[in-house]
C-alpha cells in the first residue's frame, strides 16, 4: 500500500529498513505482469514450451522484476519520491507457487538523494539484488 504522504529526506537515516513486502507468485501474477509489459516470450506464459526450453515452469520476466522493485520503493516512500536509477542483478527465477519477499535498507544518503539496497528472495535464493537511487522532498 503506497503511503499517502511521502517520506521526507530528513525523515530517513542510513541503516533504516524498509517494510518487508511479500509477493505471492501466482501463475496469474507471472502471466499478467508479463503481458502488461508487452513481453510475450513463451517462457513467461506457456508451461509446455518453457519445459521444452529446459525450465521447470514459466518464470517472471525482468520488466516485472523492475516493476516490483519500483513498487517496493514507492510503497514505502510515497508518491513524491522520484526514482533516478534502478540497478538490479538477477538470480534465481521466480516460479509460480513460490513467494518473493522483498527487503531493503538505506545504504547512502546525500544532498536529497537516497540509495536503497534491495533484495527479493524466493525459496531458491535471491531472485533480485540491487540498488535504487531516489530523491525525497
Amino acid at each position, binding site marked *: 500500500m503506497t503511503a499517502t504522504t511521502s517520506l521526507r529526506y530528513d525523515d530517513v537515516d542510513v541503516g533504516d529498513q524498509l517494510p518487508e513486502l511479500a509477493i505471492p507468485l501466482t501463475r496469474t501474477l507471472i502471466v499478467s*505482469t508479463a503481458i502488461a509489459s508487452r513481453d510475450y516470450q513463451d517462457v513467461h506464459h506457456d508451461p509446455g514450451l518453457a519445459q521444452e526450453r529446459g525450465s*521447470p515452469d514459466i518464470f517472471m520476466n525482468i520488466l516485472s522484476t523492475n516493476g*516490483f522493485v*519500483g513498487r517496493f520503493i514507492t510503497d514505502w516512500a510515497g508518491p513524491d519520491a522520484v526514482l533516478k536509477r534502478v540497478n538490479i542483478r538477477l538470480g534465481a527465477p521466480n516460479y509460480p507457487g513460490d513467494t518473493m519477499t522483498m527487503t531493503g535498507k538505506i545504504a547512502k544518503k546525500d544532498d536529497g538523494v537516497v540509495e536503497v539496497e534491495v533484495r527479493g528472495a524466493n525459496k531458491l535464493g535471491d531472485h533480485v539484488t540491487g540498488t535504487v537511487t531516489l530523491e525525497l522532498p
Partner: protein
Amino acid sequence: MTTTADATDFVAQLKSFEGKEAGGPERGADPVNQPMIRHWVEAIGDDNPVYVDADAAANSVHGQIVPPPVMLQAWVMRGVRPRPTDGGNPRDELMNLLDSAGFTSVVATNCEQEYHRYLHLGDHLSTSTIIEAVSDEKATGLGVGHFVTTRVEYRTEDGELVGTMRFRILKFKPGTGRGATQDGDGSKPRPKRPRPALTQDNAFWFAGAKEHRLLIQRCTQCQELRHPPRPVCAKCRSYEWDAVEAGGRGTVYSYVVNHYPQVPAFDYPLPIGLIELDEGTRLVANLVGVDAADVRVGMPVEVEWIEHDPDLTLPAFHPVRSERPRAGQPDEGWPGPQRAEQ
C-alpha cells in the same frame, strides 16, 4: 581442439562488435498512455496514485499523471509479433557467432536503468541500442560463456534523452556450469568431491561420518579430547585412544567464504566454518542453510549429514533453528544447486 591462437582470434572477433549499433532504431507502437499504465499497475499491484489519479498526480511533485519509471522498457516492446530475425544487423551477427561456437543458451544477468525525467502521457519513445561490451570467456555458475552488454537510449520524438538502460546477458554453453547436475540440463553429471586422504589415524572418523556419527578422538589415559585425529595425545603423550560421539551442537568459532579458486564439485560462494563443538574441540565443515553474508562468529550451529556420494558422507553445520530438526537427518527444503533458466 581449439588452439590458443584460434581462441584469441575468436575473442578479437567478438570484441570487434563493441561500439556498434545493435540494429536499427525501434519505435514504440503507441505513445505513453493511460490504459497501458493501468494494465501495468494493476498487474504489479502498485497503488501509487500518481500513476492513475489526475488529482493526486497534480498535487504531487510530478504535477501530472506519470507512468511508473520502471516501466521504461515496456513503451518500446514489440508485443506479440517477434522482431524479424532476417539478420544483417550486428546484434544478430554477434548472437549467431556465439551460437556457432556453442554458446547457445542465454540468460539476462543485469539491468540498470537511469531516468533523466519522468515520462508524461503523449511522450512517444524510440530507442537506439549500442553493443557496449563483449567479455572474455568467463566460467560462471551457469556455464562457460561471454557477457554481452548493450546500452539502450530512450528518446522522445523531438530527440530528448529521457532514459538509458544498460542490459547484460550471458551467452553460455549449456551443461558447463558448476551448478549443472544430473537433473539440471541432462548433460554431464556433477563431478564428485575430492576424496579425503585416509590414514590409519583418521579412518575411524570418516567411517563414523558414513553412519552419521560425529566422533571425537579421546585419550584413554588422560581423557583429553582431540581433533583432527592424530596418533599421540598432546597432553600426556599416550598412544592409547578411543572415540566418543559428539552431541552435534556448537558455535562458529571462525569462518571464510570461498569465492575462488572454484572446484566443480562445490557451489559458490562457499561458506566454510571452523566449528567449536560444545565438547570443546573444533572442526572444519561447510556451513549450509545460511546465506554466506549472514554467517557470524559465535552463531550457534548444529550438525546435519550430507551424503555427497555412496562413498562420502560429511558433516555440515546449519544455524540452530527454533523448530529443531533431529540431528542426523538432513532437513528438507534447503535450496539445492541452482539450475540454468534456459
